């Protein structure tokens, strides 16, 4: 799909699904935490203790997700996106661990639940789709067996014939031709796109209210990407699931999501509706990310810009704003290197946003472009 017409698409952004979730200040949201939200994450912290160093992969992240809302989480590799996804599901493996915070799933905190309790939630209330369709399926089990497993683990009363019927239904639902027959095939007999469809089928098998998709289309070619994303779009609507879509592709976010959070060095540095980000990102990092999207209108400006420097080492974070060393605004400013910016609710021309930047207010007021 590419991101060629990001802005065009944004102008006619889907109004049909109701207003985008917009933005809520994290402090205010605690009051109605078990109110309308499908998922509320509060000050979630994930660390990897590697002996010689402690890597802070997710640093006090908070956000809310309404039922059927679609949130895009974007950021560079190593910004903590996948760690965030796994932390929400309670799937962080040692030496990593969730060091604090709350994950309220349909109003209930699931941080610190036992493996038994968590496993009864995973797949039923909250499901996961992973990036790589090559390695997301067990190579020595049939597609049918893996679908059976997804259904049976939460429906132990179902008999084999019922499981098989339901599995075939799921395959048909994700547009796999000759579903009945293909249940007995192995993953290597499926194409990449079909495998990703199977992964989606497994995720929606139990009608979860929240779906976390970690780069679901990254490993696919562009046409397959479009098909898979279209399928996901349709199914999420039909099953009325809320989605967290983790990606580094802003084109996909513009097409699929209602709201977007930009992740940098383990923090959500800007959270807003899609319009706000695409029409006038406030944080200098969001702005820089958008500049890196190819756009034919800017061909004359020469080669695509890149963000200078590298993401910071998460085991030795600098003081102040973590983006300051690479920032076009704050690179030279003492305040950016010395003081950590606090999340601020700002109003821009196209909606409100929560931004962590010392200059959020000024930048939002004038719009960044």
């Amino acid at each position: 799909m590419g991101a060629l017409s990001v802005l065009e698409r944004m102008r006619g952004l889907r109004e049909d699904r109701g207003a985008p979730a917009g933005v809520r200040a994290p402090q205010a949201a605690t009051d109605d935490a078990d109110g309308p939200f499908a998922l509320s994450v509060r000050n979630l912290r994930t660390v990897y203790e590697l002996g010689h160093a402690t890597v802070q992969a997710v640093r006090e992240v908070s956000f809310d997700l309404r039922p059927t809302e679609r949130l895009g989480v974007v950021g560079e590799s190593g910004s903590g996106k996948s760690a965030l996804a796994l932390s929400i599901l309670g799937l962080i493996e040692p030496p990593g661990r969730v060091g604090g915070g709350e994950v309220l799933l349909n109003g209930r905190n699931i941080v610190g639940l036992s493996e038994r309790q968590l496993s009864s939630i995973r797949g039923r209330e909250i499901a996961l789709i992973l990036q790589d369709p090559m390695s997301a399926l067990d190579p020595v089990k049939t597609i049918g067996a893996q679908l059976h497993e997804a259904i049976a683990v939460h429906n132990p009363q179902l008999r084999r014939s019922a499981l098989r019927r339901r599995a075939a239904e799921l395959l048909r639902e994700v547009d796999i031709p000759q579903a009945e027959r293909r249940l007995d095939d192995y993953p290597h007999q499926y194409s990449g796109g079909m495998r990703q469809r199977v992964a989606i089928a497994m995720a929606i098998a139990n009608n979860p209210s929240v779906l976390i998709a970690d780069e679901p289309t990254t490993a696919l070619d562009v046409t397959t990407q479009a098909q898979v994303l279209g399928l996901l779009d349709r199914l999420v609507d039909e099953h009325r699931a809320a989605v967290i879509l983790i990606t580094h592709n802003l084109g996909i976010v513009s097409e699929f999501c209602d709201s977007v959070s930009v992740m940098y060095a383990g923090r959500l540095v800007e959270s807003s509706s899609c319009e706000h980000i695409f029409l006038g990102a406030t944080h200098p990092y969001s702005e820089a990310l958008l500049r890196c999207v190819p756009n034919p209108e800017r061909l004359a400006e020469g080669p695509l810009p890149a963000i200078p420097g590298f993401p910071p080492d998460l085991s030795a974070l600098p003081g102040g704003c973590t983006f300051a060393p690479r920032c076009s605004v704050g690179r030279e400013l003492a305040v950016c290197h010395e003081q950590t910016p606090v999340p601020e609710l700002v109003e821009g021309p196209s909606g409100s946003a929560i931004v962590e930047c010392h200059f959020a207010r000024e930048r939002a007021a004038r719009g960044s472009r």
Partner: protein
Amino acid sequence: MTGVIARRLLGSLGAIFGASIIAFVIMRVLPGNPARLILGPLAPPSTVHSLYRQLGLDRPIYVQYWRYITQFFQGQWGYSYSDGAPVRTLIGERLPATIELALFAFLITMLASIVLALLVTYRRRPIADRIVRAIAYIGFGTPPFFVSLILLIVFFSTLKILPGPEGRLGAQVTPPATVTHLYTIDALIAGEPGKFLEAVEHLVLPGVALGMANFAFLVRLLRANLLEVSREPFITVVRGKGLRRWTAFRRHALPNASLPTLTAGGLVLGEFLAGSVLVEKVFNWPGVGSLVYEAILKQDFSIVQTFILLSAVMFVLVNLGVDLLYAVIDPRVRVRSVVTA
């Protein structure tokens, strides 16, 4: 599928051919006249010459080889010249003991390595991991005969909880009624639990001594494979579906990790069947290994020669079985073979 079998069979035949050449050449490159060796220094030259012709040693080398190989597969393995008995009878008497020891050693080695590898990878405790690695290093670096002696000193001489080097059964115990020639199984068939325990007790120390080095090898292999597989995205996906960690491990990580271990297991079993000469000697185990040990001392080369080729055949057969098993377990092998066949 038939393509795979045909190709594997062909490969196996090649390996057996190679081993037969080695066994054959060993006999031919030995200094001196085999006929003289057999008859001794006092025999008159005419007798030596007639035996020389009787053995076919005056024929061209390829005729000799052909005769040797066809006779081997017909079960005519010649006569032991220290004993006079047919080699086939001698080896036939000893083979069950070796097979029983090999199977027992294989069983405990596999079980121990699977359990320990699971323990260290599932629990991810660095201390357990270090202990298992230390055991593995010791097992790797210590020759089996030395392990045998240590085990005897500890468990027989000092602790007195296991029998010493007295073979398959205690001196007062008669073997159970013969069905399979494996005492443990025969004792079970005959319904004699006492004899079964006796046989197992006698198997423990030689089994451990034989298995030690390969246990080290297998546990490291399986541990590495398990670690690798448990980091695969599909394990995360499976847990995301709602399977508990242990169930995900058992149902998905273990089968995938055991594929390479299967191959290694075949090699190990083949080695146990073929190469327990010194361990058998230390424990007075009446198997093929100790027969060969004695044969080497007596320069009884028809036994040695047969043993070399026979162990090659067993080794190759076991690994052929593993290859076929592989094709049954791993769907990717199966399909690839259908495509290429």
